[in-house]
């Protein structure tokens, strides 16, 4: 009984463990009908661990609610609160929603039922149904008590692991076998199962989320479309940067891979779609609610200097029709790539932007400058005069006036 564990045995054990957890990457889809919200209206925790978690969150929410990253547009915030009221299930009236100006595709739900939506998410959604899908996914985290369940999973597994390592060590010590390698392997295995559980919870949220929007009368397929758009964006962003796209298939992922989510959501949507029923997309309402901040959202995206992603986002929004604002920001993104090829394309974008009635003043500015550069001074002057008439108090207005005089 004194033979140490051979390296070969150890590798075999590790491989078996990895194989066992790797199946987590391709977890079976969770049927939307298999899930029920675990909380009702006005939920308050009673368990000791959850009470502690809620208390810690008080200051977090106070900090979030007072953060200067929040976008203050009152109408838009009311609109978002109304939306979570539609797809929030039994807790619809209890949840709070905050909009943060962060140009990324993301949203977060906190254990006490407040969620933070990133502005980059609003930019990417093509209609209310798509946004409702993301909000419903976040609501489902709260309805299914995911944060406390995840914490309990972590606590249970770390308890078991520490006792097992200690007892294993003592047994090994008594028998004269070194068990340190095994203990490390067990630790890795524990981390992998924790991540796998996290992916399972995300899949649960997708499943309950799609049911919530279907019940609220939104097209169930919209959630799957969101993932299709995200995959397209990741691929194009990587291609422009000449990098391999991160497709998210890994036993170390916290979320299921986007493609898996897209496929599962499509299957769930097919299950939930009632033939003959008319589903709402809410595109007009969505555009109206966002009209005040759309230029800011596009501007923030352009300034990320992620040309591929920006191109994808603008083109996906343009599927519903081009306008001056989209063409102008397409021009901005191309111009910032700063090579002759892209300057030529940027000039074309600005030229088509100014053909739309909603072209921003800056579209006229850059249109004029590119015309001047192209050796068409008369047309350039006209465009710049138009810029001055639209933005007489622009910071560079005196400079442009001087340019037109000389």
């Amino acid at each position, binding site marked *: 009984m004194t033979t140490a564990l051979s390296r070969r045995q150890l590798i075999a054990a590790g491989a078996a463990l990895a194989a066992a957890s790797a199946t987590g990457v391709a977890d079976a889809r969770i049927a939307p009908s298999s899930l029920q919200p675990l909380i009702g209206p006005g939920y308050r925790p009673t368990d000791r661990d959850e009470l502690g978690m*809620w*208390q*810690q969150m008080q*200051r977090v929410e106070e900090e979030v609610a007072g953060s200067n990253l929040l976008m203050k547009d009152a109408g838009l915030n009311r609109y978002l609160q109304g939306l979570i009221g539609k797809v929030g299930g039994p807790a619809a009236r209890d949840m709070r929603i905050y909009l943060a100006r962060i140009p990324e595709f993301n949203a977060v739900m906190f254990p006490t039922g407040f969620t933070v939506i990133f502005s980059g998410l609003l930019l990417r959604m093509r209609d209310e149904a798509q946004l409702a899908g993301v909000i419903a996914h976040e609501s489902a985290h709260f309805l299914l008590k995911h944060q406390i369940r995840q914490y309990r999973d972590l*606590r249970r597994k*770390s308890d078991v*692991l520490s006792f097992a390592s200690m007892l294993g*060590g003592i047994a*090994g010590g008594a028998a004269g076998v070194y068990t340190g390698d095994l203990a490390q392997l067990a630790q890795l295995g524990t981390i992998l199962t924790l991540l796998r559980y996290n992916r399972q919870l995300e899949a649960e949220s997708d499943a309950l989320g799609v049911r919530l929007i279907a019940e609220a009368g939104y097209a169930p397929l919209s959630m799957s479309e969101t993932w299709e758009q995200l995959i397209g964006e990741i691929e194009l962003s990587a291609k422009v940067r000449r990098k391999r796209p991160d497709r998210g298939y890994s036993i170390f992922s916290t979320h299921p891979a986007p493609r898996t989510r897209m496929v599962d959501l499509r299957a769930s949507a097919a299950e939930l779609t009632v033939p003959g029923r008319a589903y709402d997309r809410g595109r007009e309402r969505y555009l109206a609610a966002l009209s005040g901040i759309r230029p800011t959202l596009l501007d923030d995206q352009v300034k990320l200097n992620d040309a591929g992603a920006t191109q994808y986002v603008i083109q996906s929004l343009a599927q519903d029709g081009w306008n001056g604002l989209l063409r102008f920001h397409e021009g901005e993104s191309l111009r910032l790539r700063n090579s002759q090829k892209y300057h030529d394309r940027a000039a074309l974008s600005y030229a088509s932007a100014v053909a739309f009635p909603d072209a921003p003043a800056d579209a006229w500015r850059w249109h004029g400058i590119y015309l001047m550069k192209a050796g068409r001074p008369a047309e350039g002057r006209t465009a710049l005069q138009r810029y001055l008439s639209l933005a007489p108090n622009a910071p560079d207005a005196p400079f442009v006036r001087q340019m037109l005089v000389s």
Partner: protein
Amino acid sequence: MRRSFLLAAVAASLATSGCVQTRQFADLQFTPPQGDYKLLVLRPDVQVSSVTTGGLPEARADWTEQARANVIAALRAQQADRGGKTLVLERRDSLPGLSAEQVAEMERLNAAVSQSIALHKYSGYTLPTKRRRGLEYTLGQDAIEFGRRTGYDYALFMHAEDSFASGGRVALQVLGIAGCFVGFCAPNIGGAGQFAYASLVDLRTGEVVWFNVLQTGSQIAGIKMGDIRSPDGAAQMVERLLGRMKPGRDVRRAQRARS
């Protein structure tokens, strides 16, 4: 022979593994507030947790409430002894003349400066420009304005946490010590203890004049060096953290020269 050596080593580690440490820095010209001064304590941040078997800190709402009340009471008593008039702000909107937003901004500014102090004074990333100069940080004009509008001389920011090993953690520790007899020794798995820091801002100059960090704990799960859930334990922590305020270096030199 080998076994007795092992036991001696374990005993030594048990003896040395419990400790109370503080490390304070002060502005070179700092004199601890005495006599008739007005001190504002901004929302003392208190957190008490239980340490699970696996070593995770698990927040306990009831203990935290208890400890917060005790720490605030201890702070009031301790400052009254020094002769100061103290207001402990428990909510951001309870300061007359200032909005919750303005109080929040002061807290965030202090948090940013405190992070800098922690990084460059405590974490070893010392700055050559700030070497041997005591504590040379300021919250600037905003803090002076804050003091002018509230009428306070000093602002104290304070954070305190305490944690206790759960039954499972103590059992694991007992196993770890028992294992020493068979040659698998884990005598100090640790995981519970106190951590606190305080930062004192002179609202007349805007400068952070004094900063202290307190760490109390033992490496043996189950052995405690303090307990802020009890009034006595909270008073002990406040005393350890704030009780031994040393004057700045220039002031100490001047005092020595006189004596």
